């Protein structure tokens, strides 16, 4: 919904939205943040995994950049382009996991001209469920789930508490960072890092780190275009 003219502050606040069209900038910034953090993510993965997480992510996101340069579109479209590339071209576990993640968000937002706290909330919930449908990973396994699940929960809590989209996104950011950091003390139970057992303790999980970057960009770029 668009609001013309004046409205009460609280009304404006609870009605915070951004347009699906303007939202495409979120994907632009997601691509940038992955490209910029390619080395960092690989380095983290190198401590417990095979050191290619940044490479894998960068490959998919950069392919998406090329596709969007040729055929740009709104947020839901761009997310679905990203998802399709991750699913169809990247492989490994990362391709399908983040592919499902972005596909769920893109699908949830599809057809919505305006994206407010409810739309975003549904999208995040769909993303969590979609990943859960293909991965058995649970909180505590030292994966991206440790970032994603508490972040979505924090958003939902804010939403239930009647917070604004801005506030909910902010709550999500904080929880995502906390979730990411929580992986530091965990022993990996899934993926390559599980090989290390106790030795995987003491370093961040690469997927949890990239997931935190992604959620922060969604929050920050989203907030930037709120009106």
């Amino acid at each position, binding site marked *: 919904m668009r609001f013309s003219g004046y409205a009460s502050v609280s009304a404006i606040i609870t009605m915070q939205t951004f347009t699906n069209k303007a939202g495409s900038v979120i994907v632009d910034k997601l691509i940038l943040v992955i490209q910029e953090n390619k080395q960092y993510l690989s380095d983290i993965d190198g401590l417990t995994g*095979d*050191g290619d997480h940044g490479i894998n992510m960068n490959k998919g996101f950069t392919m998406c950049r090329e596709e969007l340069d040729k055929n740009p579109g709104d947020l839901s479209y761009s997310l679905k382009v990203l998802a399709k590339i991750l699913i169809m*071209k990247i*492989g490994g576990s990362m*391709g399908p996991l983040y592919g499902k993640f972005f596909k769920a968000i893109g699908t949830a937002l599809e057809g919505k001209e305006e994206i407010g706290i409810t739309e975003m909330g549904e999208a995040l919930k769909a993303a969590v469920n979609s990943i859960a449908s293909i*991965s058995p990973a649970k909180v505590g396994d030292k994966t991206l789930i440790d970032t994603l699940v508490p972040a979505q929960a924090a958003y939902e809590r804010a939403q239930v508490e009647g917070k604004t989209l801005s506030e909910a996104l902010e709550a999500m950011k904080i929880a995502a960072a906390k979730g990411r950091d929580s992986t530091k003390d965990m022993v990996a139970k899934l993926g390559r890092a599980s090989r290390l057992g106790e030795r995987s303790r003491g370093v961040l999980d690469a997927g949890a780190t990239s997931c935190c970057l992604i959620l922060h960009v969604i929050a920050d770029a989203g907030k930037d275009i709120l009106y």
Partner: protein
Amino acid sequence: MQKFINDPSKVVDEMLEAYIKVHADLVSPTENERVIKYKYAPVEGKVGIVTGGGSGHKPAFIGYVGRNMVDAVACGEIFSSPPAQMFLDAIKVADAGKGVAILYGNYAGDNMNVAMAMEEAEEEGIQVKKVVANDDVPSAPKGEEASRRGVAGEILMWKVGGAKAAMGGSLDNVIEVAQKAVNNTRSMGIGLSPCTIPEVGHPNFTIENGKMEVGIGHHGEPGIEVVDLEPSAKVAERICNVILPDLPFNSGDEVVALISGLGSTPLMEQYIVYNDVEKILTEKGIKIYHSYVGNYFTSLEMAGITCTLMKLDDELKKCIDFECDSVGMRQFQRL
């Protein structure tokens, strides 16, 4: 890293470039450069057989593409599942209208990518069914068979499924016999040294000298325990103690035995382990109907072996005896 490579990020591509030159009699490239097909695929009137997985397991997976074997393969990066598109393209080039059986190993990435490819393929009107090998006993306890990994038992699944398809079996026939092969197959691996993924540049884990990792996976996944290195006879006993009761294999059973090296274990040692396993089986009244010893399914240059047993019935025997021509397995019709 003592390796003959150029760009570490190009190892799979360069390998494939060479592979299609060396084996031009047998395989052809496809539009998807990571999908290699049997030269005469799709074979008219035959169910297509597809597999795929991460690279670094040579001759698996590509080495089992050929006559009466696999029709198309999706080749991922080293130890990394191929994306759904690759599986999809492999399905497409293998399909001759009789449907496609996708026979692969139980890994999270492969499960996800195959599932997505199957959805797409069905949307495009191709009938696809799957069998997921889960022969690696130590990777999950009895009762949780569904979460066990697939290891060298996959080869027997391809052999059997490939033969059934070549004999004219329907998609359901092929799926059924491949699933029977998997249900009747149990494996276990023992690791003696790690391997190095070229893009990573250092070993993926460590095994102390004088130790062995019992139940190791095909990518160096941890086993059930690390113990002092034992003589081959003890290793064979240890393996048999785990895999025989799991199926169980009983006196009077006939089996295929497959000992595969993991990369750097000399053939000589593989035969020595075979010798010890054979003695135990003979003692227990289990008859080896056919056996394979060699580097059938490797993990780059890991030292170690896997031991795989498949219990046979008449149908499986016929499939095992069937002529096939692939780089990894080449058999004249057994009379």
